[in-house]
């Protein structure tokens, strides 16, 4: 694997399969009396969050701690640190503290990329969500969840599986990372959204697109509903929340058109009644809670694979990739 995880595109097929297989082993840890492994003892993982995301932060924190790493949480939201130029100063501080990995969430697309490639820090950088760009560990945990349910936990298990990703693709870093990763894993991805919520140039992505949810659902092996923020209404992306739900929401009636084995996913947080109804979210098909559990295992796998081969911070060779 590369030294950083900035985009799902950083992962080759072998890399991605390795993360899944490693996460599968990590997940079994949850059944043991001592839920801790010594692999990253003495290493420091910094959670650098310029945006609030308690769920993601906790997931990374649990993952790092279960691997015995020291964890420093650095919440920069709301302070003077959320300003642009401070990304560099913050990075220099972390470097001085000897961080081995920086897990960064930032409102600006590409901020983790800057952190990794500007020469400010020598740590591994893990993108925990940047602007409307990517969220690769979310994609990995989504893929892992599908792989457990649809792929028999086998290498190549997602080959040819049909995945529908529905909702605000334009503003979704989850959709971007998922489209890239699932394609890498051999799945066939269809992005479903009103035309206003699909990015320009999407024809060049390795995915199918559709404006018609009802035609896509019966063929899908997994349906991932994306959160749609009501604010988008004011940008004129769709007329009303009601119209959105009617055309692109997943309700019990639509769920009935799914194949028996099809699972329903959501990266959270859900807007119940908007993109997904409560009966669907709480149904047997829903693996939404499992996604959260899997998040810790997948992030353990990522931290382990990124860090265990490296020398500790401070003794690392400059510029290796």
């Amino acid at each position, binding site marked *: 694997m590369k030294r950083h995880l900035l985009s799902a595109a950083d992962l080759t097929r072998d890399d991605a399969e390795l993360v899944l297989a490693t996460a599968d082993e990590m997940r079994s840890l949850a059944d043991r009396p001592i839920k801790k492994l010594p692999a990253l003892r003495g290493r420091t993982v910094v959670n650098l969050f310029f945006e609030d995301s308690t769920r993601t932060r906790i997931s990374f924190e649990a993952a790092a701690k279960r691997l015995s790493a020291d964890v420093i949480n650095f919440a920069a939201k709301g302070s003077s640190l959320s300003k642009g130029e401070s990304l560099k100063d913050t990075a220099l501080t972390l470097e001085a503290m000897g961080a081995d990995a920086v897990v960064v969430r930032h409102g600006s697309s590409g901020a983790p990329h800057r952190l990794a490639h500007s020469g400010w820090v020598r740590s591994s950088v893990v993108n925990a969500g940047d602007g*409307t760009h*990517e969220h690769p560990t979310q994609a990995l945990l989504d893929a892992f969840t599908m792989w457990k349910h649809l792929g028999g936990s086998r290498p190549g298990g997602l080959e040819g599986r049909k995945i529908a990703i529905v909702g605000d693709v334009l503003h979704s870093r989850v959709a971007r990372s998922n489209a890239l990763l699932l394609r890498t894993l051999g799945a066939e991805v269809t992005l479903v959204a009103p035309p206003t919520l699909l*990015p320009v140039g999407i024809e060049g*992505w390795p995915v199918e697109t559709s404006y018609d949810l009802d035609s896509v659902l019966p063929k899908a092996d997994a349906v991932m509903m994306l959160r749609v923020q009501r604010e988008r209404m004011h940008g004129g992306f769709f007329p009303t929340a009601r119209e959105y739900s009617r055309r692109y929401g997943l309700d019990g009636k639509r769920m009935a058109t799914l194949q028996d084995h099809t699972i329903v996913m959501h990266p959270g947080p859900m807007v119940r009644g908007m993109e997904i109804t409560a009966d669907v979210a709480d149904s047997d098909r829903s693996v939404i809670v499992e996604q959260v559990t899997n998040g810790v295992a997948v992030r353990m796998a990522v931290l382990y694979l990124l860090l265990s081969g490296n020398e500790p911070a401070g003794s690392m060779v400059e510029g290796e990739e």
Partner: protein
Amino acid sequence: MSTTYLIKNVAVLGGAPTDLLLQDGVIADIGPEAGDRGASAGERVEIDASGLVALPGLVDLHTHLREPGREDAETVESGTRAAALGGFTAVHAMANTEPVADTAGVVEQVWRLGREAGHCDVYPVGAVTVGLAGERLAELGAMADSAARVRVFSDDGQCVSDAVLMRRALEYVKAFDGVIAQHAQEPRLTEGAQMNEGELSGRLGLTGWPAVAEEAIIARDCLLTAHVGSRLHVCHVSTAGSVDIVRDAKRKGWNVTAEACPHHLLLTDELAATYDPIYKVNPPLRSQTDVDALRAGLADGTIDIVATDHAPHPHEDKDCEWAAAANGMLGLETALSIVQQTMVDTGLLDWAGVAERMSYAPARIGRVAEHGRPIEQGEPANVVLYDPAARRTIEASESASLSRNTPYAGRELPGRVVATFLRGKATVLDGKLA
């Protein structure tokens, strides 16, 4: 009395080698016997210009000198030094300073600072609207009548998006033969825009700046210009569609001129994938198709001129994440090299074509009588000597600008300005400030 220069074996506009005698601020003689005239050999400096091309002093219609207000980024002094090193003898200083150049007082201050610096002539551009706010016209007439003799008006950085205001501005400047230089950017279509809108912006998660936001304004302004019979200049044309619209307007005989920036002739939006904001500029870097269309438009005269949009920014405004970074790049010291690489070395333009697009035409559009003159006997001695065979690797730290935001750092570019003469006085000699 100023020094007399005898420039030997120079290829004027790339033609056959000849000699040039610069004396008393004018081109005193041209030809093999030029050295026989004027001052005796002991009192003049001879320059062996074998292999060098002589061009009329370059004129930039689009420079940001940042003074007053952002003297940490650039001053008139530092910016005009960079201009001289790039072969320019005249630059138009954009109005988006602090305070904005929207009164006779500010434009006269900039004009005076330019004269005091003495590296090249500075022609202030006046703001179209008060404070660039796009709400009401600035005192365009007062600026035109001031010592700075402003003829070019622009809200550059902001688009005069209000159609009525744009119409009034175009009408009003007819009284003093002014021109409105429009930064064509439909504001609603570019809210939060970060880079060219296309497949890549979608992938990178950076809000797109669609070509149509530029083209729609250019089309509207061409129609307005035709309707009121005024003069429009389109700043930094960046898209293939814009080139087509300007070409159509010219075909109809409308009084529209347009400029392209060196970076839009060379660089593409692929560079945004680095997330390095050194490549962040407004209008953004576009696709290779757009680059090719701009080159073709510049070659066939649809695009009249090359203008640098030299936009200095302090280090901290670029040493950050993309969205937080300022728009703009340095351009004065590299413009001629980029034009050589993209237009001359590709066979699209000869040196006479370069002189037209980087000197004569910008001077005509800006109504600058003293610059953009042919290299002929009796003309002002505004001349640049350029070595097209040289190659140099750009080092950001070597710029005369106070800022370092060149997108070409580390690149090898062709050509080198050897000497620049402003009214017969050398501002640059041996590639260094004289």
